[in-house]
């Protein structure tokens, strides 16, 4: 059984979803890459932000 850490799961999810979003939501290769990187950063960044918020609330 594959047991990634929570963060590894977030990164894998973000990677796969960003590739699909980049290819399907933009028309030129350059814009696909930029949008994919943007989505990846938003996925991972928002997960880290929400994690810190939950950590601070739980204290």
């Amino acid at each position, binding site marked *: *059984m*594959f*047991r990634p850490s929570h963060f590894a799961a977030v990164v894998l*999810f973000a990677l*796969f979803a960003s590739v*699909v979003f980049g290819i399907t939501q933009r028309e030129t290769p350059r814009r696909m890459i930029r949008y994919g990187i943007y989505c990846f950063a938003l996925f991972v960044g928002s997960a880290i932000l929400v994690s810190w918020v939950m950590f601070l609330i739980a204290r």
Partner: protein
Amino acid sequence: MATEPDKSAGAQKDSQQGYVYLPLIAGWLVPGAGHFLLRKWGRGALLAASILGMFAIGLAMQGKLYAGAHDMLDLLGLAGDLGNGLLYIVSRVLGLGADQVQVTTADYGTKFIVVAGLLNVIAAVDAHNLRTGRKA
């Protein structure tokens, strides 16, 4: 003598022949197949790798494959899973996936499988848009 743009236009024309919904259906049944039919090899390969990877990791995490709709959440999960097309059907036939979610990782895996199906639907619709000329 044919020039490079002429060749490209010819290939484009070849890929535009046939049943208009074929890339949509093929893309749903097999991830990336809709783009392959339209000769978008790179895009198709990346889409296939992403969707297959997400589905396989979901199964490796002991994610659950929804088999029936006992309540509304199960129904939504089943709809997401069905987006995987043949991957879902073959996995069900082979008995892959957990029957019940018992650990956190398996819950993530279940979501990976559902999202893989939803991403596959997006990819199939993208192939249809390419086929109809709505997208370049």
